[in-house]
C-alpha cells in the first residue's frame, strides 16, 4: 500500500473516531446526570414533544466505551493502512492456522490409510469415499468425475496404461507427473504421403475395418524404420516411454484416419502435472488406491 493510501485510510478511520468523541463531548450536557428537565426543544408533532435531556449516563459511558474499544482495536489489529497491528494478524495466517488445525485432525486418519498397501486400500469402501472426494477435487477437471477421461486425457478405468498400472506406477505418475511430449511431429521426415501410409498401417494394427491395405503395407515399412523405437516391433507400445499401445483400439486423441494422421503429422504433447507439493505423500497414496480400484472392480 502506498503511503498516500495508508495516510488517507488512517485519516478517515481516526478522523471518524475522534469526530465521534468530539461530538459526544460537546453535546453532553453539564447538567446532573439522571435528572431530566421538562423543558422541551420546542418541536412538536401531533402533540408529541421532544424533551431537552442529556443522554443517560450509562448510554454515554457505552458510547465512550466503544471509542476506547475502537482505539484499542486499532493498536492490536490492522486498521490503519499498512500498519500491521501488535498481533500481526492477517486473514492469510488465520487461514494457515485453520489449515494446520485441519491437518492435525486428519493427519492420523491419513497416516493410518497411508500405512495400508494400495491393493488392500482399494477394497476399503470408506477409504475409497475419501479417495473419490480427492479425485473430484484434484483430478476430475481433466479426467472427468467418472474418470473416463476425455480427448487427450486418458481414461483411468479401462486398465490400459501409458506408463503402467501397478500401484507403484500410478503413485509415481501422480507424484512426479508425466512429461508425455515424446510423440514428435513427423511430417517433415516422412512427408505427407508417408503420414497417410503410416496412419493406415496403425489403423490396421488396431483391427479397424475399411483400411487401405496397399497404403498400410507401405506404411509398415516406414513404421519399422521410425516408430518401433518407442511403440515397439508389434506396436504394443512401452510403459517406460509412455508410448501408447496402438493395437488395442483405445485412443487418447481418437482413432479415425484424420485424427491419427494429425497425430503423426504434428505430434502430441500432453502433460500430467506433478501433485507432490499440492497433495503430499499420504493423500497421493490414497488417490493412487482409488485410481487403482477404478480398473480393478
Amino acid at each position, binding site marked *: 500500500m502506498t503511503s498516500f493510501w495508508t495516510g488517507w485510510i488512517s485519516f478517515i478511520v481516526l478522523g471518524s473516531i475522534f469526530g465521534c468523541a468530539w461530538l459526544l463531548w460537546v453535546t453532553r450536557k453539564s447538567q446532573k446526570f439522571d435528572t*431530566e*428537565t*421538562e423543558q422541551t426543544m420546542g418541536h412538536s408533532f401531533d402533540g408529541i414533544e421532544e424533551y431537552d435531556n442529556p443522554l443517560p449516563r450509562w448510554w454515554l459511558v457505552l458510547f465512550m466505551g466503544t471509542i476506547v474499544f475502537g482505539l484499542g482495536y486499532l493498536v492490536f489489529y490492522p486498521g490503519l493502512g499498512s500498519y500491521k497491528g501488535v498481533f500481526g494478524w492477517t486473514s492469510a495466517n488465520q487461514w494457515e492456522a485453520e489449515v494446520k488445525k485441519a491437518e492435525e485432525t486428519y493427519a492420523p486418519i491419513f497416516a493410518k490409510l497411508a500405512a495400508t498397501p494400495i491393493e488392500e486400500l482399494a477394497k476399503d469402501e470408506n477409504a475409497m469415499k475419501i479417495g473419490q472426494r480427492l479425485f*473430484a477435487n484434484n483430478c*476430475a477437471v481433466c479426467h*472427468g468425475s*467418472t474418470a*473416463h477421461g476425455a*480427448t487427450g486425457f486418458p481414461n483411468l478405468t479401462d486398465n490400459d496404461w501409458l506408463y503402467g498400472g501397478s500401484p507403484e506406477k500410478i503413485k509415481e505418475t501422480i507424484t512426479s507427473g508425466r512429461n508425455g511430449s515424446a510423440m514428435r511431429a513427423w511430417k517433415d521426415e516422412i512427408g505427407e504421403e508417408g503420414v497417410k501410409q503410416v496412419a493406415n498401417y496403425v489403423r490396421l494394427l488396431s483391427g479397424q475395418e475399411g483400411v487401405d491395405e496397399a497404403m498400410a503395407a507401405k506404411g509398415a515399412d516406414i513404421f519399422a524404420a521410425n516408430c518401433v523405437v518407442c511403440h515397439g516391433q508389434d506396436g504394443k507400445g512401452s510403459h517406460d516411454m509412455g508410448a501408447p499401445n496402438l493395437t488395442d483400439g*483405445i485412443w487418447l486423441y481418437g482413432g479415425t484416419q484424420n485424427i491419427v494422421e494429425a497425430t503423426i503429422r504434428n505430434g502430441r504433447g500432453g502433460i500430467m502435472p506433478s501433485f507432490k507439493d499440492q497433495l503430499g505423500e499420504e493423500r497421493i497414496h490414497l488417490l493412487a488406491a482409488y485410481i487403482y480400484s477404478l480398473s480393478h472392480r
Partner: protein
Amino acid sequence: MSTKIPVQNIDPQDASTAKVKTVELYEARKKIYVKEITGVFQKVRSFSLWFLMGMYFLFCWVSVDGQQLVLFDLPNRKFHIFGATFWPQDFVLLSWLLIICAFGLFFITTLFGRVWCGYTCPQTVWTFIFMWLEERIEGSRNQRMKLDQASMNKQKALKKAAKHASWLFVAFATGLTFVGYFYPIRELVPDFFTFDISSGWAYFWIAFFTLATYINAGWMREQVCLYMCPYARFQSVMFDKDTLVVSYDLNRGEPRGSRKRSADPKEVGLGDCVDCGMCVQVCPTGIDIRDGLQYECIGCALCIDACDSVMEKMEYPKGLISYTTEQKLEGKDSKLLRPRTIGYGLALVIMMSAFAFKLGTRLPVELDVIRDRGALFQTNAKGYIENAYTLQLMNMSDQVRTFIISVEGMDGISISGKSEFTLEPSEVRSIPMAIEAKPNALTERNHDIVFKAQAVDDASVKIESESRFLGPAPVKF
C-alpha cells in the same frame, strides 16, 4: 358505563406555567411480595405449570431405539423430533411452524385473552417455581417482608442462602436440561460431572442458561413482562369487546370501602368491594385490577381466586373479579364466533392442513444432479456418446437403504456402470456416473433427461431430478 375509573392525570404541565422542573424518569423497582393464594385458578395454573415443567425436564430423557426423541443435533445439522429427522433443507417447515404458532397465539388471545401469559409462558413457569421455593423457605408474604426489613443475622443469612441455593439448583438443572436438547443428555450429564465434555461451548451454555434462569425468574420476574416482552404491548390490537379478560365489575364493586361483616352494603352506601387489597397482594405483576384492564395484567386470575375467597367470607356472591368480556360487563351478550375468530380459525386450519400434508409427504431422500463441467460429451470405447454427471444422493432416513438409480428421457440411454447404491442412515453420497447413448438415438443436440432414485425396500421412497444429455449435432439424411 357511567362509572369510569378515575385516572391520574400525568400530562406534562403547560410549558408556559412550568419553569424548569426536574422529574425522575428512572424509578427504582419496588419489590413485589406476592401473597400465595389457593383457589380454582391457582389449581389449574399449578397443574399446567408443573406439567409443562415436568415435560421440559423429562422429555429429553425419552429415547426410542437409542435415539433421543427430541434432539437438535447442531454439529451434524439434523433435528430429531419424535422420530422424524429434519435437515437444513427442511428449514422452511420451521418457519411455517413458527407462523402457525404465532397465529395460534393470536387466535387464542382473541378468544381467551392472555391465557398464554398466565398459564404457559416459560417466564411464568419458572417464576412460579421460584416463588414456590421462596414461600417454602422464607415463609409467607408478611414473613418475607419482615425478613427483608430485619437486620442481618444468622437466621436471615441462612434463609437467604438456602433460597438462593435452591434457586441456583433449579436454574442449573434448567441449563443442563436445555443443553441436553442439543447434546445427547445421556452423555451430557455423566460427562458434565466428570469434566469430560468435548466442547467447551457446552459448559458456556450451561453456565449461561443457569445464570439467565436465575436472574430472570429470581430477580427480574414481572419486569420481563412489563418492560421486555413485546407480546404485552400488542394485546390491544388482538383484544376486542368479546375477548375474555380478567376484569373487576365496577358496577357491583364501587364505591368500595371497608365495612363490618354484618353490615348491609346498601345501607352503608357501599358496593361489594371491601377494599381489602388482597387482589393487589397476590398479583405477580403488582397491579390493581380494579383500575381496569392494563397491559401489565398477565391474565393469571390469581386476583379472582383472592377476591372469591374474600367474597365467600363476606357471604357475597363470587365473581366480583372474574373472567368476563367487556360486552358482558356492559350487560350485553358476548359471542364466541365473530369475524375475527372465524378468520383466524380458518387461516389456522388451512395452514395446519397444508403443514400436515407437507410433513406427511416429505420424502427421506434427496437427489441432486450436477453435469460435469469439464467436457460436453465424449465418445467411449463402445462408440457410444457419453456424458458424465455427479449425483448427490442423500438418505435422510434413519435406516440403511439401497437405492436403484435409473435414467429416462430419451431412447437408447443407459447408465454405464453401477446403478445400485447402499447408503448408511443420513449419508450424503457423491456418485460419479457416466450416461451413454447410441449415437443414432440422438435426435437433438441436447435432450432433457430425468434421473430417478428408488428405494428398494419402500416403493413410495422415490425422487427425480432433471438434467440434460448433450451430444453432437445429429446426422440428417
